């Protein structure tokens, strides 16, 4: 029920926003098209109806999974999004795995060996990576690995294989190669965030009495560090990682446009430029849906990981 309200609100806010993005008509017709025809088109699209009528019509259709026809491509938006979703999800998935697989170990290492030179080096270099705007990082990677070394493709997804309605780049060499640069670009930010968070939490936990106590009892360091300490850092890590998974999808917008990655983000940014309202609306509602789902899962995991929280909800 809450989720429905969330999505409804997102739809409403998104919809009221569209009026400020620009006039869709200019992008739907050529420069010679007369004023009269523009007015007629506006009428046909229902853009002259009162705001609430437009929104009501949109929500009614959206509930049935119908987001209307794209103004620019003249095909059902739901089809377009479905076609683009695999690209974005695969990219976000790989980026998330990358940032967890590298971020957590680095975070643990820098927490345990916080005074070592290597730790300090890792901490410092990780910051340089996030101090550059994503579009610049992406371009630099393309410039170096694509243009200078010519090791990796500079754009697109490579060859994809259709598995039913899901197109995957995981099964071809060029598809996998194409994933490398964009997923690194996308993961860089999250990686640093997760690493620093794990480190901060680890440091906190290592100072707590129960860890000191465990060590005093003579339990091996390794066991204390990983079984007890790491486990207890997981609450905030799960929160942030969960939230970041959602923003990975949202932030894929920039990565996708730098690498011409044919995902939802690219579709969306293009739609903003074209004032393609149905695509924008559908994308935003979908992103809202993702977030609601992720939040629910995060909340559930909370209780699973930290038993003390259960006491509250008996």
């Amino acid at each position, binding site marked *: 029920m809450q989720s429905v309200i969330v999505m409804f609100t997102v739809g409403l806010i998104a919809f009221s926003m569209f009026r400020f993005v620009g006039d869709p008509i*200019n992008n739907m017709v050529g420069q010679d098209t007369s004023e009269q025809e523009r007015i007629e088109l506006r009428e046909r699209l229902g853009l002259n109806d009162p705001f609430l009528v437009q929104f009501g019509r949109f929500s009614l259709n959206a509930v049935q999974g119908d987001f209307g026809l794209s103004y620019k491509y003249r095909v059902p938006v739901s089809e377009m999004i479905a076609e683009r979703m695999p690209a974005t999800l695969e990219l976000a998935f790989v980026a998330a795995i990358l940032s967890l697989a590298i971020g957590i170990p680095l975070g643990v290492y820098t927490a345990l060996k916080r005074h070592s030179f290597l730790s300090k080096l890792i901490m410092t270099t990780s910051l340089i990576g996030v101090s550059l705007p994503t579009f610049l990082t992406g371009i630099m990677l393309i410039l170096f690995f694509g*243009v200078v070394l010519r090791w990796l493709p500079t754009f697109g997804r490579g060859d994809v294989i259709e598995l039913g309605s899901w197109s995957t780049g995981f099964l071809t060499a060029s598809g996998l190669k194409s994933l490398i640069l964009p997923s690194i670009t996308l993961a860089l930010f999250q990686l640093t965030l997760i690493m620093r968070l794990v480190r901060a939490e680890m440091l906190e936990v290592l100072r707590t009495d129960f860890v000191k106590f465990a060590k005093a009892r003579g339990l091996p360091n390794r066991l204390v560090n990983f079984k007890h300490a790491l486990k207890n850092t997981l609450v905030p890590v799960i929160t942030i990682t969960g939230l970041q998974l959602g923003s990975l999808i949202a932030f894929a917008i920039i990565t996708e446009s*730098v*690498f011409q990655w044919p995902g939802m983000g690219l579709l969306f940014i293009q739609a903003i430029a074209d004032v393609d309202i149905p695509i924008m609306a559908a994308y935003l509602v979908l992103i809202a849906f993702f977030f609601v789902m992720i939040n629910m899962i995060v909340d559930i995991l909370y209780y699973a990981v930290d038993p003390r929280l259960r006491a509250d909800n008996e």
Partner: protein
Amino acid sequence: MKLRHGLMAAAAAAAIAVAAPAVKAETFKYAFQGNLSSLDPHSLNETFLLVSLGNIYEGLSIYDDNLGIQPGLAESWETIEPTKWKFNLRKGVKFHNGNDFTAADVVFSWQRALSEGSDQKVRASKIKAIEVIDDHTIIIETPAPNPILTSDLVFIYMMDKEWSEKNNTTSATSASADNTGNYANLHSNGTGPFKVIDHKADVKTTFDRNTAYWSKIKSNVTKVEFTPIKEAATRVAALISGELDLVYPIPVQDWKRLDAAEGVKALAGPEARTIFLGMDQSRDELLYSNIKGKNPFKDIRVRQAFAHALNLEAIKKKVMRGAATPTGLMVAPQINGFVEELNTPYAYDPAKSRALLTEAGYPDGFEVTMDCPNNRYVNDEKICQAAVSMLAKVGVKVDLLAQPKSKYFGKVLSSGGFDTSFYLLGWTPGTMDSENVLSSLLSCQNKETKTGLFNLGNYCNPRVDELTKKVGSETDQAKRNAMIKEIFQIVKDEYGYLPLHQQPLSWGVSDRVTVSQRADNGLDFRYVVVNK
């Protein structure tokens, strides 16, 4: 007056026949900044889309690589009366699905171009009626004498009546909710030298050679892959890395880099698009200025002062990297009606400019806001910035409002109520004829006659309007051009607009291929050759 094209057609065919036919599989890959939003030839009147679809679909006449009119699906034509043209259709032409091309298809395509969702109504309405004499002869009647009918016909593409009816796509694809017949949006069936075998809008489009094409073409390409790439840097990278054979447009500042890199080069040429500044000359008070109660731009001396404050050579050298052609005229040399002696730009003379402003009563200048797109023309925002700085030096303080094109056009065009005081715009007449510029940009705003609708500052002179009307129906080229010249002279003397330059076409090409760069920034596959 009769125009005979038979001879010309023969000559063209002979020239093309010299090239060897395609034998080996050759794939050509290219990228453009925009995308193929639809395969429906009547859905959108946009140059890139139409030129791209020109490889699949064809009109009765077609452009060659110099934008010259050539016989296309019509073998020859003649004017039998000022408003009646007889067209002899080409025999033996087949659509990609094997159907024959006949007069019925012409009538059908014309009607489809007039259907509700069509964005080609302007062109299609240049035809009043079509009379079918036999399967391969028609007579087209125009509402008024139209000397440039064959230019209008280039982009009225011919579709197969039978195929369209079978697939329920007899009216143009539109975005309105009740539209169901959008088959032609994603599928195609033309007569052109290439056919689409896979189309994912905004991702990738793959073309295959039409082996049954009616004419021999220069190209030896058997397969074409098109990818839209929005980011300029990504396009350039994909070209240099050898993944693509052609990308366009490329930033003018990257020419040096391309020429230094191995295996690629920059291909440049003058585009038929003129970039200019316009000023609100009709409101009694500017919408965005600190001068209240009057409109400085109504004073010719102020417009003149602006003209002399702009250093077009500096813009050419520094912003456009030498790649623009400074201009004094609202049309490019490729456009019919271009007048060489009027093309000298207004001289750069800041001292004179300051004197004129003082004379006009603005010794300390004034403030005005300038509207500028930032993703529409080559270095548009940078040109505006440069203009702002130049005007500052004569005392005019310009606030720059640079926006993405969707917001910009939504504000300054008629749909936004011409909400601007001072703006930058670019224009290419789709017909390659001055008449389009006269009626769209130089005539007074008039919603009834649908003229001057892109004359955002409403420059208005009744004499210009009167002449424009005559130009529209004058069939004598000499008389017509004399009138066009008179109009341009008036506009120039009155400082109605401030033309800046023709922007360059800027393509990046791999040495693997030879292409022909058309002045409308179009890529015609017919002229793409993979070098051996």
